[in-house]
């Protein structure tokens, strides 16, 4: 079965305030989708309705086609989630908490033991497996929470700002974990306000503002379409490139619509065309043997789109 989540007319009102306004969104397939939006946009509200922590005023949320509101047990059986930095009973150790969580999910004890080792090693918390959760720092707790969400090797993973409370190394590790998750047959739906994180790990993005969905599309299409039809990518090189080399060798390539230097080692390129042209451009720059280190969607491009869309909303 293809993993999927779907919001159908999902609406949440708190008194006269509408936190989420008739969200219609369907995401399916093995991919990572970034759920973007400023504070108060309705991201966490949406995710809480997908995990039945709060109830919709209207509409319904589905996971793998099963209504969360009508059959939460069945819907959440295929889902691992991390919403708002939860707490585990302080006297329990991560290993015990995972035994409880695994047993409640119907996992066999040996399967729980094996997965506990795998996921705790993944979040670098294995040496703390038998320490009480109550003694952990915020960052350590968040790592354990991420591991808990992955314990059952779920088809659908819902993450609400998973990097919250983590130091830069921890944030990088979370990104690496999410990238690793993408290798499986799995749908990851992740809210974040860290654009670089989204660019790094997500294939698609949905932007929410003031409870309304502004757009949802592939990351490259978003930056291209909303960036005036121009696709922007960022290329990083091992050493600083000479201006003339840049202009004559890279700037002259037919797929390049323009370029600007981000810093000594990095440049932002405007790509003429779509994904095919972008792929050609990557091949050509790599063949130039200029020490290309990375080539990815421009963070600044998404940031521009993000800020522009949000400011349109403000106006």
């Amino acid at each position, binding site marked *: *079965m293809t993993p*999927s989540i779907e*919001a*159908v*007319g999902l609406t949440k009102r*708190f008194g006269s305030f509408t936190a989420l306004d008739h969200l*219609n*969104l*369907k*995401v*399916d397939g093995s991919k990572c989708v970034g759920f973007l939006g400023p504070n108060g946009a309705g991201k966490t509200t949406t995710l809480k309705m997908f*995990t*039945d*922590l*709060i*109830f919709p005023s209207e509409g319904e949320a589905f*996971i*793998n*086609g*099963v209504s969360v509101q009508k059959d*939460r*047990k*069945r*819907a*959440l*059986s*295929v*889902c*691992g*989630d991390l*919403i*708002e*930095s*939860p*707490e*585990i*009973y*302080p*006297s*329990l150790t991560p290993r*015990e*908490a995972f*035994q*409880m*969580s695994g*047993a*409640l*999910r*119907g996992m066999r004890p040996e399967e729980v033991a094996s997965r506990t080792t795998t996921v705790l090693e993944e979040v670098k918390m294995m040496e703390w497996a038998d320490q*009480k959760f109550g003694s952990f720092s915020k960052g350590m707790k968040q790592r354990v929470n991420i591991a*808990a*969400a992955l314990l059952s090797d779920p088809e659908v993973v819902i993450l609400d700002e998973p990097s919250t409370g983590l130091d830069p190394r921890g944030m990088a590790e979370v990104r690496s974990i999410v990238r690793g998750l993408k290798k499986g047959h799995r749908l990851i739906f992740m809210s974040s306000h860290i654009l670089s994180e989204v660019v790094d790990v997500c294939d*698609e993005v*949905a932007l929410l503002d003031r409870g309304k*969905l*502004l*757009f*949802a*599309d*592939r990351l490259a299409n978003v930056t291209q379409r909303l960036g005036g039809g121009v696709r922007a990518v960022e290329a990083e090189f091992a050493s600083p490139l000479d201006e003339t080399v840049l202009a004559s060798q890279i700037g002259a390539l037919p797929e390049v619509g323009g370029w600007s230097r981000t810093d000594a080692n990095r440049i932002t390129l405007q790509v003429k065309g779509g994904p095919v042209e972008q792929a050609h451009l990557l091949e050509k720059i790599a063949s130039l043997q200029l020490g290309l280190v990375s080539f990815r969607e421009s963070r600044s491009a998404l940031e521009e789109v993000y800020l522009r869309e949000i400011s349109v909303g403000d106006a």
Partner: protein
Amino acid sequence: MSATPTFAPADASATAPAGAIGTVPTTVAQALILSRYQFRDFLRSRRFILMMGIVLAAGAILTTVVAYFRPAGLIDNADDLYGGLWAGGAGVVIVFAGIIFGGDAIAGEFQNKTGYFLMGLPIKRTTVYAGKYLATLAASIVSLIVYLIIVTGNAVYYLGAGAFSVPIPLIESFAITLLYLLALLGFVFLFSSLFKTSAYAVLVVAILFLFGFSIIQEVIVSLAHTEPWFLLSYVNSINAYPLTGVPGHIVTTRSPFGRATVTTYNPTYFEGLVVMAGYWLLTTIGGLLFFEREEFT
């Protein structure tokens, strides 16, 4: 990905493929699993040490008082001794156990955010409620048993090793005490479900059971001259009846200071059992309904 306005909206009438439930345990099995881990958490917590401290302190005070005064009516036979030390004290132990273990059982899920961990699992809210109720019940019963051991220690000291043979009336009294415990925990869980802040829940339950109901009972009896049959704290006294005998339902005595009469009410077995069972049923359903509707905002 499809979404509005970028793409066509998701089709509201679309019937998506059914997901697989896998081998998620039954509701009852999940409640037992949850209660086991919650009970383990209780056993390791400071609140359990506090509760044991209260039980041991209460037992020590009782033991000292009995040892000092050696009241003849109390230490002559097992029924009187258990009636005096067990029946009354057990009610107090239960109230403290309810407050300490159950006061924040549900409210704490919201305030401490442990609910975010539990409710993300494929588990019904009813299951969470039942699991926590069972764990609280188990921790309270442990407290009761510790108290009973202290009382039995006194019984053995004054009456000899023969007191080890548990008298049938004590078993009956224990059973009634358990019904009271079930009802009180139902009440405590109801209030715990009403609040999202543990301190409020604990405070309200403590005030009601330590002072509130006693004051209400006095006011009803003294001013309204009515039997307070509907108060849980009033009907609890039937747990002494198997040991001490059933007193008169309404006892009127003449005041030693003039012609006025004083009326004392004692619940009947029927009243006590029905009211306790009623409290258990109604408060448990009420608490569950509140918890089912409470949001993790």
